[in-house]
């Protein structure tokens, strides 16, 4: 029983980490209707920026207080992501207004290759460290109830808390502020939004900036867990089932979807895996998402696609 709870908690934590990445997808899709294939590359780029700045700031500016230079590195990396967002809007999205979804998807693929190349050229392809002081040792809880205690990873706990705060903040942003309303209008119909005077280009820059910051937070947390290097962009593939399970347009859906996928993955790998030789968690996550989709084709919280003849 204890081990089952451990796996469950581990799954919940892993799920929260996936939702961090999934949030970036959802944000951009919600606001511009673009499925941002480049989200994984953005997470990597942001993490690389922060890791390298965290190295260069103490080296060149002589600041040794870890809290301070990590904050500065974070701020600098956020600025870099703002620049990327502005460039993406100016060079790519502006010219592809109201094109089909697949064209925009392909454009984000081009951005992926571009970011991969530029990121590794500027920041290097080695493994870099992000150390934001996350606790690495595990926490043994409920030692009186279960023998040996329940293993809870403190790092994952902190990450889950950060993800929850981020989601709460983003939900409020979309629901309560006028910019959020404008974003939802743009997601609905670009041309209609433009015709009532919403400045499309500024909205897109804002959305990609926010997605960039979310990518930075995700990159920081995953980078702190795994070290920053190229495989970090593969995390996006693990987050895709979360996106479709929760619904492409729902921020709370990203969290709920993440929790479900995380738990499903870990439970299946630990309890079903040994019977079939192991290694099943990735396809199980996708199959789980697929099964949910058969009942709710737009994901749990996604907007219903209405076809008019």
């Amino acid at each position, binding site marked *: 029983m204890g081990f089952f709870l451990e*796996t469950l908690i*581990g799954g919940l934590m892993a799920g929260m980490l996936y939702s961090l990445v999934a949030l970036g997808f959802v944000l951009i899709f919600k606001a511009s209707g673009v499925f941002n294939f480049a989200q994984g590359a953005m997470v990597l780029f942001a993490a690389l920026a922060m890791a390298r700045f965290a190295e260069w700031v103490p080296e060149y500016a002589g600041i040794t207080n870890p809290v301070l230079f990590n904050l500065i590195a974070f701020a600098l990396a956020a600025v870099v992501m703002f620049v990327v967002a502005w460039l993406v809007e100016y060079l790519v999205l502006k010219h592809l207004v109201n094109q089909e979804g697949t064209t925009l998807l392909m454009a984000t693929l081009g951005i992926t290759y571009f970011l991969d190349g530029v990121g590794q050229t500027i920041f290097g392809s*080695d*493994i870099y460290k992000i150390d934001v002081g996350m606790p690495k040792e595990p926490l043994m809880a409920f030692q009186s109830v279960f023998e040996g205690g329940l293993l809870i990873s403190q790092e994952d706990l902190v990450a889950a808390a950060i993800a929850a705060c981020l989601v709460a903040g983003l939900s409020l942003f979309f629901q309560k502020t006028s910019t959020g309303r404008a974003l939802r209008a743009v997601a609905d119909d670009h041309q209609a939004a433009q015709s009532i005077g919403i400045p499309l280009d500024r909205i897109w820059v804002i959305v990609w900036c926010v997605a960039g910051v979310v990518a930075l937070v995700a990159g920081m947390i995953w980078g702190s867990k795994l070290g920053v290097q*190229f495989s970090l962009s593969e995390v996006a593939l693990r987050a895709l089932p979360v996106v479709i399970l929760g619904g492409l347009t729902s921020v709370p859906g990203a969290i709920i979807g993440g929790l479900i996928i995380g738990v499903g993955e870990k439970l299946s790998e630990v309890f079903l*895996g040994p019977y079939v030789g*192991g290694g099943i968690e990735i396809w199980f996550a996708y199959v789980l998402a697929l099964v949910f989709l058969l009942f709710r084709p737009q994901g749990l919280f996604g907007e219903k696609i209405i076809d008019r003849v």
Partner: protein
Amino acid sequence: MKLHHLVMATTLAAATLLPSVASAQAKEQFFPVLPYRTGAYAPNGVPWANGYADYLKLINARDGGINGVKISMEECDTAYATDRGVECYERLKGKAQGAIFQPLSTGITFALTEKAPGDKNPLITGGYGRSESSDGGVFKWNFPLMGTYWSGADIIMQHLTKKEGGNLKGKKIALVYHDSPYGKEPIPLLQERAKMQGFDLSLLPVTAPGVEQKATWLQIRQQRPDYVLLWGWGVMNSASLKEAVATGYPREKMYGVWWSAAEPDVKDVGEAAKGYNGLVVTGEGGKVIADIKTHVHGKKQGTGPLDEVGTTLYNRGLVSAALAVEGVRQAQSRYGKGKVMNGEQIRWGLENLTLDQKALEKLGLGTIMKPISTSCLDHEGSRSARVHTWDGKKWNLTSDWIEADDSIIKPLVKQYADKYAAEKKLTRRTPADCQS
């Protein structure tokens, strides 16, 4: 066709404008290099490639080439992808009569094993590739020099047996492996040993590239194995160590193969990886590292940063280059000193390579590698390694040389080599063919 013409045109233009364009001239031995300097496995591939390139530069700078024949080399980045590796191979193989290929990837090795014999290019797969290719009777052109995965797994098991006082009966050993042909290689040998020695082997695959391993390590926490063998590459290694920290599995009980126990794997885990053990086949740098620092880095010709010189993977790349160079030198001893060697001749050289301690000392390699001696039926040459342990800042040797147990490995090699020969409808080489 336009591409072909464009390339020819630009090459011609470049050749006329810049007379010092590097091209394989008639009197140079061409060494193609197939590294991966980009992609998910770059952190491990780059030091290897730098060691390889630096040693070749050293031979040119210090010795003036191999008996006067200078070395020319060209790199083609494979990014660890099989089809890019095949494309690089096709592009580089035409540049010289005989070229030794070392793809540093089990996937590319499998693809090139099919192509290299037809093209008469020897394939050195030092420390990786197909374990059964040490049988030169079937695999004429493959040279898994200085150890295959079966030798490596065997050495770790011998070390563990010794640690447990000679008896592993009833112990639990878990293999955390990269879910790919590379990771699956040691399984036959470990299963054989499990039968022989009575320990419990549990196999835990990690889907490539291995970024999220929580489920695997939760299972390890549940099973509580006595030892965990790590067979990963790239980010999987450091991710495994970090998850081991996160689930509280003692790193002292973890043993990695030589590709899972190098600086990039433990550098960012740092202190937390203290006590982690791994195999290493190279030793202290000694004279050759000093020479590289003088002749190559001293003249600003170093391929990578200076502080990388002498690290585990750098040394491994260096030794791989050294074996290739010695193969050519051995070929020259039979087919003409001071001449450029072709593929067949180099293959003979690699098959009749004998480097004893004295010869190694003369080359400056006395401390960095162990003596090696290949033959027609044994393309591995030597099969021993040592265990080194991470102390938080660097690797320290913690065992003597351990030799893999041929009595277990040889039958397995023969069994799998025969299977390969039957599948491909090859016949074993005759003794006469061995003498040629």
